[in-house]
């Protein structure tokens, strides 16, 4: 490797030298011929073979020396400009290949340097930054998934161990068994959501677009939560315009409503209220889902659509932080818009805007 590198450099040296030699030889020949020609015509000097011979030898030696000089100067210039920069960039690229995304190249500011290098360096730094953030997302995702999966597993294991004890009261036995059931349910929900999101992100589900009544869909989705609001005593207010048609994938869109409703009921207290409204503008249908729950603080607000982001960082309450990521993804696929307004302690309002027929 190193040897071939050396021969390569020697060959490149010879090639550079030859280039300069030919260039200098050409220039010198032209100027000398011109100079001698004019001189002999004006001063009527006759050249003898002998003095031409001497002059030619001297000039030839001069050409050789000049060529060597230029080759050297050029090599030095290259070393300090092009080669140094390319070496920097190559080294940085090699570090990225090895997975070190922290590397950044300092832009050159010395004058006389090629401006193009700064462009390359800029692009390179941007690339490194992007790769770094993708890598952070990936490792965060894995960390989150494994945390979210391992926790319920560990809890189930513990309850299983507890259940093995011989002298359990019925009450305890029921409690432990319920723990196993609740946690397996939590894990099942997580799996379903991870798979759905994964399918949506890889675009394996292509939206199957049909025209349907949005109001009817909202009613049907909302009715799936009938048990919950009856049990918790949450008040429902619905103001749903009938006959509002949209063209969309029905199954995907129902994911949006189910997740938003589920959140609204999850975060609303027993004496609270959940409002669902469907209104229209000329080209759009606007669905507003409003609850009187705990609200979202301004610091949390911007992150709620991120995967695995949960308002409370302890991951202690139910849910897996994927619901709103799913919602956002679907709304994006439908080319709709989603917005949130929230006041801590007073409630949250989600608005989804989609094109109507």
């Amino acid at each position, binding site marked *: 490797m190193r040897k071939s590198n050396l021969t390569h450099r020697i060959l490149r040296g010879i090639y550079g030298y030859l280039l300069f030699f030919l260039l200098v030889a050409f220039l010198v020949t032209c100027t000398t011929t011109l100079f001698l020609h004019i001189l002999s015509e004006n001063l009527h000097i006759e050249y003898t073979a002998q003095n031409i011979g001497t002059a030619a030898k001297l000039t030839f030696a001069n050409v050789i020396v000049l060529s060597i000089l230029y080759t050297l100067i050029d090599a030095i210039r290259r070393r300090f400009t092009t080669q140094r920069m390319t070496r920097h960039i190559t080294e940085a690229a090699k570090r990225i290949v090895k997975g070190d995304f922290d590397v950044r190249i300092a832009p050159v500011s010395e004058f006389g340097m090629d401006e193009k290098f700064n462009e390359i360096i800029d692009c390179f730094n941007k690339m490194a930054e992007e790769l770094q953030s993708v890598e952070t997302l990936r490792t965060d995702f894995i960390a989150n998934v494994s945390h979210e999966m391992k926790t319920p597993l560990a809890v189930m294991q513990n309850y299983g161990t507890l259940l093995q004890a011989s002298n359990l009261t019925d009450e305890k036995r029921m409690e432990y068994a319920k723990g196993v059931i609740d946690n397996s349910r939590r894990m099942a929900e997580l799996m379903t959501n991870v798979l759905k999101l994964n399918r949506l992100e890889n675009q394996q589900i292509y939206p199957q677009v049909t025209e349907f009544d949005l109001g*009817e869909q909202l009613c049907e989705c909302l009715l799936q939560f009938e048990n919950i609001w009856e049990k918790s005593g949450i008040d*429902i207010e619905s103001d749903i315009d009938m006959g509002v048609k949209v063209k969309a994938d029905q199954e995907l869109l129902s994911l949006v409503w189910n997740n938003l409703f589920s959140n609204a009921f999850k975060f609303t207290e027993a004496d609270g209220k959940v409002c669902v409204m469907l209104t229209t503008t000329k080209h759009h249908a606007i669905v507003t889902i409003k609850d009187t729950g705990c609200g979202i603080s301004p610091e949390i607000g911007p992150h709620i659509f991120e995967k695995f982001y949960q308002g409370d960082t302890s991951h202690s309450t139910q849910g897996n932080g994927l619901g709103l990521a799913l919602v956002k993804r679907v709304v994006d696929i439908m080319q709709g818009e989603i917005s949130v307004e929230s006041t801590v302690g007073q409630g949250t309002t989600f608005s989804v805007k989609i094109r109507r027929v």
Partner: protein
Amino acid sequence: MFKILVVEDDIEMNRTVCSFLNQNGYEASGCLNGEEAYDALYSNMFDLIVSDIMMPGVDGFEFARNVRELNEDIPILFMTARDDIASKQRGFRIGVDDYMVKPIDLDELFLRIGALLRRAKIASSRKLEIGNFVMDADEHTTYLGDEEIPMTNREFSILYKLLSYPKKTFTRTQLMDEFWDADTETAPRAVDVYMTKLRAKLAACDTFEIVTVHGLGYKAVLK
């Protein structure tokens, strides 16, 4: 006692579902694949079938189709990991009565089996009885005690539907789609008029009531 056939290739899953159903007053037998299930059906009478879709050999779709060819009425419930709408559509088109996605909640399975069996009974006897309130689908008559309650065809159909699925809320559009002509110009609010009429006619009946659910739809609630 109702007899239930559970077709599921995972031994543990099969065992737990069967044990649960047996604990809850049914007589469940498990089969690990389609062939075994055919044999079981051949030698026994079952009231309901719970089946997986992804099984080695005969898969759930094929199994359900073959069962449907021989028996139009037996309720079939699919219990599967496949949650895509295409599989659901395929299942319902074959004639499956209900569909649950794994991991299933056993309590929910119990409720759904109860509902399926009740509907199967209503469907086979064509008669609906709630206390002293009786609806006969063949004669289109409604009796409260000895007294006949006169009803139009549409009123009868709507009430029969609501009472066949007690506690389930139907949206106006769902009822419209089923009991009005497809090309009707009537607004879904027309359903409200029928509900008012039905309530007036059923004022004396105290075994159930028709409840309006937050402007979303209607359901019958047994008392």
